[in-house]
């Protein structure tokens, strides 16, 4: 089928402001949006977007698809092309556009530092972990730091969504000496946290449950 990718373009060296450009590409319904974008790139080598793994584990190809942030490589054409066959692609909202679909990731990776994003290993950790406790880590450790939650969710306060996931993951870890104290350190009001945990699975490309 032919689909039209309507892509938000911006080159800071020549453009005053972003504009949209259409690319008509032939793809199959079961192919991914990333496949379609690669075809558009072939037509226009100057088009910029990040990509790497193709299998939703690296987080590079996070973009805004028809107004909703997501990963291009795990989005199937048939699920977003609709009847019109038209797909609008924009850079992630709440991030600064630096070139076409590429956004500035420095503030995002910097934002992780708000939560002490590493395990503060307990001196007395025995080397054994209760399997039940370890099961609680399984969902949050699948975070790929793609930035989709930061783009999609409004969480008031200094700790941004992906950082919050990281902080919660550390707080759940029985090896961590800060443990539950992390919740206080992150200064996230309980009602905000509750809403965040409720909404995260629907937003997160990995379906992380808080």
């Amino acid at each position, binding site marked *: 089928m032919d689909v039209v990718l309507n892509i938000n373009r911006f080159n800071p060296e020549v453009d005053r402001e972003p504009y949209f450009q259409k690319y008509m590409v032939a793809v199959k319904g079961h192919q991914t949006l990333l496949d379609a974008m690669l075809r558009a790139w072939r037509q226009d080598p100057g088009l910029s977007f990040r990509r790497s793994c193709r299998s939703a584990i690296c987080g590079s190809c996070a973009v805004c698809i028809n107004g909703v942030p997501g990963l291009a490589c795990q989005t199937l054409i048939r699920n977003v092309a609709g009847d019109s066959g038209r797909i609008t692609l924009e850079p992630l909202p709440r991030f600064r556009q630096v070139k076409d679909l590429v956004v500035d990731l420095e503030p995002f990776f910097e934002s992780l530092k708000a939560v002490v994003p590493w395990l503060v290993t307990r001196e007395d950790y025995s080397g054994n972990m209760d399997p039940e406790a370890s099961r609680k880590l*399984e969902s949050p450790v699948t975070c790929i730091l793609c930035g989709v939650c930061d783009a999609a969710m409004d969480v008031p306060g200094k700790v941004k969504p992906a950082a919050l996931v990281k902080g919660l993951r550390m707080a759940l870890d029985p090896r961590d000496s800060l443990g539950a104290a992390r919740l206080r350190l992150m200064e996230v009001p309980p009602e905000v946290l509750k809403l965040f945990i409720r909404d995260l699975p629907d937003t997160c490309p990995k379906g992380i449950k808080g």
Partner: protein
Amino acid sequence: MLIHEVLVVGGGLAGLMAALSASEKAGVAVLSKIYPTRSHSGAAQGGFNSVMGEGDSIEAHIFDTVKGSDYLGDQDAIEVLCSEGPEVILELERMGVPWTRDSAGGIAQRPLGGASFPRACFAADFSGHVVLHTLYERALQRGIKIYPERSLVDLLVEDGQVAGALVYDLARAKLEVIRSKVVILATGGYGRAFAKTTNAHSSTGDGMAIAYRAGATLSDMEFVQFHPTTLYGANLLVSEAARGEGGYLRNAGGERFMAGYAPQKMELAPRDLVARAIFQEIKEGRGIDGQYVHLDLTHLGETLVAERLPQVKDLAIRYAGVNPAKEPVPVEPAQHYSMGGIRTDIWGVSSLSGLMAAGESANVSVHGANRLGGNSLLETVVFGRRAGRKAAELAGHLSWPVLSGETIACSRESWESIFAGKEQGAGDDDVFRIRQEATGIMTRQVGVFRVGSELEDAVKRLAGLKERYKRCTPRAAKQPFNYDLMDYLELGYLLDLCQVIAGGALRRTESRGAHYRLDYPQRDDRRWLCHTFARRGEAGPEFSDGPLQITRYTPQERGY
């Protein structure tokens, strides 16, 4: 000019591990052409082989690895790999890796191919991902300087000594010089040299090719691993853990055909054997639609699939429309891993002074002619750690190598015109088309089954493609995040490596591990019990025999 005592290129498992261990004693920076957490190490699913408990032994791990390598692994390096494994796994445990646990709370282990014991430590089927993120967290804690989205372009060599690197900054669209005492390349594999590969778009062998161009020795490049089970069509990895957890391979008749190829190990035979078996089934008309075979997990039950193989389940549902707990998954072999790489000693030191390597980009050599599942992740952390230690030690002894303005200018000028970019020129050949032709040649003619005449033809055609490449230029004008320029550079790396792979495959007139010659179906220990060394010559790669380290195990026939 930026200055760091130790410059690590690559932010995957080997690179981050090297940086962490070097940072204890030296100034370190990590350069990565993407963000470290996006490295392809994260796509590894199955686990890290390591002897952790009763019933298993280091000895057994060593022997399995030697046998798996079809006796082409260096046994001194394999001893290091297996002996240091347990210590590194426990170090990762203390760093915060969320290993899957056994019922007693210890680190759970699963069987992978070619192993005599269930010895792969894992975290569901996200094993590479969780360790990558844990190492990244520790790099943040350590305050290690990271330069993301900078691509290594050239090694700056002065009087045979690597003195720094020329790098391209994607965001700023400009070249930069980094001065260093030691450069560690941890840039991963070249999977993108093949049309069918599990590898990420970023796996283009940059470090191997740049080291080769700078005069370092590459080794055993003809040994290319084809993973038996990749999703049919999309070639996304379906972890060996699926078979480790009990999955079956079936042909069109529903038979577990591995019985005819590896009656004892069955689906958990080493990858070279399983990949050949699948192609043989397809060739003899027992493939499904003549194209693929089935990976059957339906007897494992929904709970096990959901708990132990959640990523495999998700990938199969999303990209193949198949729920593996209920229906068999269509799979086919595809390029997955490079056994060969930059030749190093057991500390990661290459043949070029000041240059080190670790991980998939290196050839130390622990995998020989065929890698066992679970050994590459272990290699990244064991040899990454060793390379980092050695680099810090070297940096402590060495005074700053001379790096003249002339050397910098010479390198810079040769790249500057390319990086300046230009408008699309009429008559320019197409980088995309050349890449498509090259990767097609590699998959069709330098794949699982090889034959002299096809390899000769491939070598000739690759040389022709390289000539065409020389007349190409990047098409996009100078701009930030110029992926067209990256594509152009990466094709150059891939073509250099394709020549070494195909040339080495043509030269090695025997079958060993993943290198299978239809015209020479036997292993020939009298002639070929040696590494293949390759160095860049004027007219292409120059090959020679390299010595093999055999300490304990003399070659025997390899049956499973």
